[in-house]
């Protein structure tokens, strides 16, 4: 249906509500909001064709973080676990971002914290997309009992307090990196399922899908050739925001003292959430110990949200063509 407001001067580039809400609220909230709005985006939205400077800045930051996560240990930095300086030093030329309570270099610790955040974020969301995305895609396309069953399953997962689920899994399975990933993966399935279904539902009713059906294409072909390519870009944008949510969730678990205990056989890996927790005890005397990793976390989440939002607006062909 053509949206008469799409070309009105007032409706310039406005980010989609559902994306804001996703990044801001508890995981279970998002899907409900997306359900309320439908996947179509709010009617006041329209598209700006250029991605803009901010988008590339965000991408640059994310590339930098990925680079640090991959090659951080090879950089000429102090060993993040060595006591290289005095306790609670402030910013200096020796230690650019200062040192923590034990005299460890905060720059190298923040750099090595990147790895945990990115692995957890990407792995959990990738799993969520694979499971929730696939089920949601089929549910929106096939409708019927499959849709009803999977939606009911999603509803139950969503109405269950996320914290209880997280804490229960963590105390049941232990706190290895992959246990935390598993926890956050389970929590991400239901929201992704709902959003993908909403998207898939919307595209499955378009004329070109019906045309394909009339021409006698098989369901699997229609799904793969007609629906999936259109759902992919909104999903990519959702994935970026999802990674941000999961990174914050991991940081929150770590901050509550329930973070990762072992990763790849290494005890007590460095994570941003845990660094903030350690620093929060010295807020009065040396606030930078908490705020350095907190800033890294904040900027990464901001970049992910921003990039996700821009991608959503940019690739929303439906809105721009009408």
């Amino acid at each position, binding site marked *: 249906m053509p949206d008469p407001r799409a070309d009105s001067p007032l409706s*310039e580039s406005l980010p989609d509500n559902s994306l804001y809400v996703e990044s*801001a609220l508890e995981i279970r*909230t998002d899907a409900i909001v997306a359900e309320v709005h439908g996947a179509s985006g709010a009617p006041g939205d329209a598209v700006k064709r250029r991605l803009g400077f901010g988008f590339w800045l965000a991408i640059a930051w994310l590339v930098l973080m990925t680079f640090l996560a991959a090659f951080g240990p090879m950089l000429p930095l102090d060993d993040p676990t060595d006591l290289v300086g005095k306790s609670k030093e402030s910013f200096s030329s020796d230690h650019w971002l200062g040192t923590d309570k034990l005299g460890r270099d905060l720059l190298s610790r923040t750099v090595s914290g990147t790895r945990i955040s990115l692995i957890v974020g990407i792995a959990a969301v990738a799993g969520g997309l694979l499971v929730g995305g696939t089920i949601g895609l089929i549910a929106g396309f096939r409708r019927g009992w499959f849709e009803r069953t999977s939606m009911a399953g999603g509803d139950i997962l969503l109405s269950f307090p996320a914290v209880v689920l997280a804490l229960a899994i963590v105390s*049941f399975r232990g706190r290895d990196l992959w246990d935390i990933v598993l926890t956050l993966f389970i929590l991400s399935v239901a929201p992704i399922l709902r959003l993908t279904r909403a998207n898939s539902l919307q595209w499955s009713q378009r004329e070109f899908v019906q045309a394909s059906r009339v021409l006698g294409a098989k369901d699997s072909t229609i799904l793969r050739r007609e629906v999936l390519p259109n759902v992919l870009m909104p999903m990519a944008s959702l994935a970026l925001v999802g990674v941000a949510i999961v990174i914050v969730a991991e940081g929150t678990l770590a901050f509550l003292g329930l973070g990762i205990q072992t990763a790849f056989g290494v005890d007590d890996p460095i994570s941003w959430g845990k660094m903030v927790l350690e620093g929060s005890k010295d807020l009065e005397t040396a606030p930078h110990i908490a705020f350095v990793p*907190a800033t890294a976390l*904040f900027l990464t989440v901001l970049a992910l949200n921003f990039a996700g939002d821009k991608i959503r607006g940019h690739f929303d062909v439906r809105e721009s063509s009408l």
Partner: protein
Amino acid sequence: MGFLLRRLALLVPVLLVVSFLTFMLMTMLPGGPEVNFLGPQAVQDLSICDDPELDLNTRTACEDTIKIREELNLDDPLLVRYFTWLGNAVQGDFGDSVITGVPVSQTISERLPTSIALMLYAQAIALLIAIPVGIISAYRANGVVDKSTTGLSFALIALPSFVLALVLLFIFGKKLGWFPTRYDIDAAFRDKAKAMFLPALTLGLGLAAVYQRLLRTDLVATLHEDFIFMAKAKGIPARRILFRHALRPSMFSLITVVGIQVGALIGGAIVVEQIFLVPGLGLVITEGILRREFQIVQASVLVITFVYVMVNFVVDILYGFLDPRVRHARSAR
């Protein structure tokens, strides 16, 4: 009325499923309630007790564990135990804490008011910020206020609550010293209200950013509706159009999310409760799981889920008040 009853009937299965899942999850956790009574001596794997050549200590531990399990009916089937628990729970009896012996219902009724107060406080702050800002930025869409709040909202949303809490604690609690940095439950009401400001602000700022975006987008859409053009053509002043004509039909998303947040904030404000030491329901649940006090976890989850579904129910009714079309569609069914 039929609609309301149908809607109300839907709540029962949700409560049953969620409470049963919690129950099951808690039973599956390693280190059951017997550990709380006996400490580490409790025998986890009762099959070793069949060994005839046990030393005396293990033998006693085995006997104790079996006795405790019998007392707590732990050997009954899961469903039997669940329905026993449920039967007591609907009568307000959630059992006693296995550690302190205090009735769970007492703990919850002590903590719930604090959680509700924090939630209301945070919602009030959020709405007081979001509604005016949302209206201004929708009315002058793309103006200075709109652009700057867009950026600010983005930043606030990207700020994890534990970071925002620390920033506020650092600035207003420690540097400026305007507010107490921790909550004292025995203090006078005025002091408690003051101590709760920073925790509520932490929650409220994050919510305000979301609420503001929701209201703004819906309001921008409404302002493009034909009936608004009609109102303008009739020469109705802008202020009246905004508040009397446009605001009400633009509140749907906002109301929905506010409702969801009512449920989410009760028991979900764990981080903030932890940092500012506010003794709310979120901390109770966390402690309950860590100490394996299952009765407390089950009871709290039931209470939270109940609040959650009831608020969503109320929100559903509110839709009818906001938009007469919803009301008509319902009565037509």
